[in-house]
């Protein structure tokens, strides 16, 4: 079974980059264009890992984490946060919301795969 | 009309020969999209003499040029016996009125002779070489020159 990834980002470019990398690496790739859509998709899709941007319309990345971890969904799914700059502040905030790890943009394929590996064990 | 090239074993190129005002001309087979029987075209107002008009080619409007007028040869009224050779110039279909299509000939590039100097500027520009076929002179048309200059006139 392929590892199922749900990527949530409002930037088509980033989604395309993620799709290209993940599909090539053999992941099953799904995407959502904002936090709201991501959270809506989550239950039926039941992804193995969620990658989410922080700054998005409708529902931001923190909101995504809170809703996924919160009482409604109460999921322990690994959540990786996409951040543009590595600010310790942002990471601490993401983590206290319940993020599993982070990926710093711009990312390269190897660091993305490495991050996924650490939270899902999956190579693909 | 089916004009399929035989599998090439040599560097020979296939040409389609046809007549315009009783003179033999030819075009590379790869330049030709299709050959259609002449049907009356729609006249374009104020068009130059060598632009016969436009024709409906499966929903596309394509211009039809009269090669005899283009080459400065004697013009005859087009009839059912004549053909329109549809060629592609810059990816756009263009129809050329010719008297009739003769045959497909295979030409060794080495047999192509340079056009001898004659006192007709037009002819020199539009003919890129000549070959001898069954003791007859066949003129190879420089398609880009023919259409480019025609378009300019039409403007």
């Amino acid at each position, binding site marked *: 079974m392929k590892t199922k990834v749900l990527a949530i980002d409002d930037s088509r470019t980033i989604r395309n980059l993620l799709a290209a990398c993940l599909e090539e690496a053999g992941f099953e790739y799904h995407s959502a264009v904002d936090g709201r859509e991501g959270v*809506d998709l*989550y239950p039926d899709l039941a992804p193995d890992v969620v990658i989410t941007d922080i700054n998005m319309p409708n529902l931001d990345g923190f909101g995504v984490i809170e809703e996924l971890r919160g009482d409604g969904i109460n999921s322990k799914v690994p959540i990786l946060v996409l951040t543009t700059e*590595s600010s310790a502040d942002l*990471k601490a905030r993401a983590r206290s919301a319940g993020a599993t790890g982070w990926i710093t943009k711009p990312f390269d394929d190897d660091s993305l795969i490495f991050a996924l590996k650490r939270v899902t064990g999956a190579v693909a | 009309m089916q004009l399929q090239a035989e599998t090439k074993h040599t560097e020979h190129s296939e040409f389609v020969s046809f007549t315009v005002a009783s003179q033999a001309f030819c075009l590379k087979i790869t330049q030709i999209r299709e050959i259609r029987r002449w049907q009356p075209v729609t006249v*374009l107002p104020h068009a130059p003499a060598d632009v016969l008009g436009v024709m409906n080619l499966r929903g596309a409007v394509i211009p039809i040029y009269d090669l005899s007028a283009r080459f400065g040869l004697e013009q005859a009224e087009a009839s059912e016996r004549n053909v329109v050779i549809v060629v592609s110039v810059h990816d756009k279909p263009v129809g050329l009125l010719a008297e009739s299509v003769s045959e497909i000939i295979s030409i060794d590039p080495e047999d192509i002779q340079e056009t001898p100097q004659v006192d007709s500027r037009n002819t020199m520009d539009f003919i890129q070489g000549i070959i001898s076929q069954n003791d007859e002179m066949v003129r190879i048309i420089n398609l880009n020159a023919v259409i480019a200059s025609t378009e300019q006139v039409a403007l």
Partner: protein
Amino acid sequence: MTGSIMDTFFEECEELLEAMDAGLAAIEEGDQDAETVNAVFRAVHSIKGGAGAFGLDDLVAFAHNFETVFDDVRSNKLQLDEKLVQLLFRASDHLSDLVTCARDGGEVDQAHHDVLISALGEYIDDDEEELVFEPMGVGAAFDPAPLPSLAEAKEATFDIRFHPLKEMFDTGNEPYFLFQALSDLGELTVRLDDSELPGYDAMEDGESYLSWELTLVTSENRSAIEAVFEFVEGLCELSISSEGEEEADADALAALNAAFGLPPVEEESAVALPLEQPVPDAVETPAPVDAVAEVEVTPVPEVESEKVAIKAAGSKKESTKSSGPKPTLRVELDRVDRLINAVGELIINHSMLAQQIANLDVSDTRDVETELEGFKNLARDIQEGVMAIRAQPVKPLFQRMARIVREASAATGKTAKLITIGETTEVDKTVIERLADPLTHILRNAVDHGIESPEARAAAGKEKGGEITLTAAHRSGSVCIEVKDDGAGLNRKKIRQIAIDKGLIPENAELNDSEIDNLLFLPGFSTAKEISNLSGRGVGMDVVKNAVTALGGRVNISSNPGQGSVFSIILPLTLAVMDGMVVSVAGHTMVVPITAIVETMRGNDDMINNLGADGTLLSIRGSFVPICDVAGSLGLRSNTGDEPAGVYLLVETENGDRCALAVDDIHDQRQVVIKSLDGVCGNVPGVSAATILGDGKIAMILDPESIVTASSSAAVFDTDRRMSNAIAS
């Protein structure tokens, strides 16, 4: 692959830049709503994010400065005043230039770039100025491909002790996966330490009791191991040691925990627990699958509750669905165009079918005709649906025009504001694309020549800042785009003199105001006396006219001295289909657009009045209208004595002039598919396009306006002939 992703990036940039401009415009209007500000921030942020992925450093750096300023606005550290908004506008324009440069190559204006950077810099605190792109923390130095290197590297043995704090499990991190990642680095041995595990009764929910001792034999360095634990820094007790490194480890760990605000890990707890204690279910790598089974004892994965939650969230899904933006589908333009062509064929096919049924020798065709009517309606529905796919709001185009006005104002030192109306008006994509240049020209012209200097405006009792209104509206089957300025209006005296000086009109020409205004559109007319670097540029308004005419549209100008000018561009709503009247002209079947026809009539000799040598007028209910012989004007009648049969189409030109087009016969009125003659032949005077009739033949679609002007006695408007003369000479 990367190429196409990059293409998408630039496409997306266009959208983001539009969103940004829209947001800035809203902010300028006083809307400083958090979401508006946020949307602009996001747009800049997304451009930066994408640009970073493609290594577009200039773009990243500028976007970063821009974003930093905007972030302060967002967090209310900065107040948006007029000056800052204007700077943000300029920054947005520059960002757009940078995107263009990144896409098409070329250089940005470095001086301008530097000015903006430093202007933005004034708003940025020193401590946030730096652009840090490297990940911080221990992960900083990690090799992104932590695979054992093929080269002979020295292997070392690391002893790792790992105890997750209970908080770690709240973040979704799993020890097992970390171990698996570690096992990629070399040979890993895992021992579970459950010595802290209390009796079942004493276990507390959510507490973490387990620890692991790992031994890794690897040729990787320490930082590669630390990189594996990057996500759980501060969420676990971790010690990594190899011979002679313990002390350094402890320091590093302390520093690390300090960085996350955690108390220093006590030395003792980090020390390995007694190993002689029996370790049940100790698992060896690779694939310590059992470790997971073991972990089940700890209260980590709560599978049950998760399932319940999924159900609950499933029902929630429906209610939240409507809140998002309308779902859209991105389709290649080629596919839409193929569809449009196919629908065009369908409509032609319908008329061919109708014609053939009419030709059949069948007495009762009523049933067939009913069905045929249904066919026609369906075809029309499909056609409208397909055209709607190509239709886009003019908003992005209008937003670009706002920039043009800003730049033109800056360059001329005038104050002009663009007001846009009808931004949501939808127009065919091609029209929008091809309108950009003409509109740019008209707007530059409006600022440059229309709007007066602030002093002159003050003197005339007007507001210091000029206003230019750009309007789009649908008007009876056409799209009308209007550019209206409140400037001085056209200087007719000057225009007339220029036209005479340039030999465009004879000195004694009698022209009404409207005719003088429209002299601007003549090729070769350019108010060269005021060479400006703006609207000058060697092109005149004739370029505008040509561009609009090429779209099947008209452009017109009207002006009121002292009050301003209005340019109106009227375009056909769709570029693909129109209602036309099929007529015969000297034996040729032709189509005249219905929109141009006021009425049709059959005339008799009594209605024709001669005027001068060859002018004829048609009297209609007491008024006289010049007759224009279509065949003659198109050069299709060889014999001048061969008069038309007396069927007239009364048409009205943009100027309001009326003219009776004489044709041989009127057949019927029908919808025709427009086939452009672009690329088929050059500009044909009197003809706007072609269409294919029911019998498969091509018919010319006439352009009444140009037929009328071509035959008009006022040589002034004979632009086509003038053009052909110009080419001939």
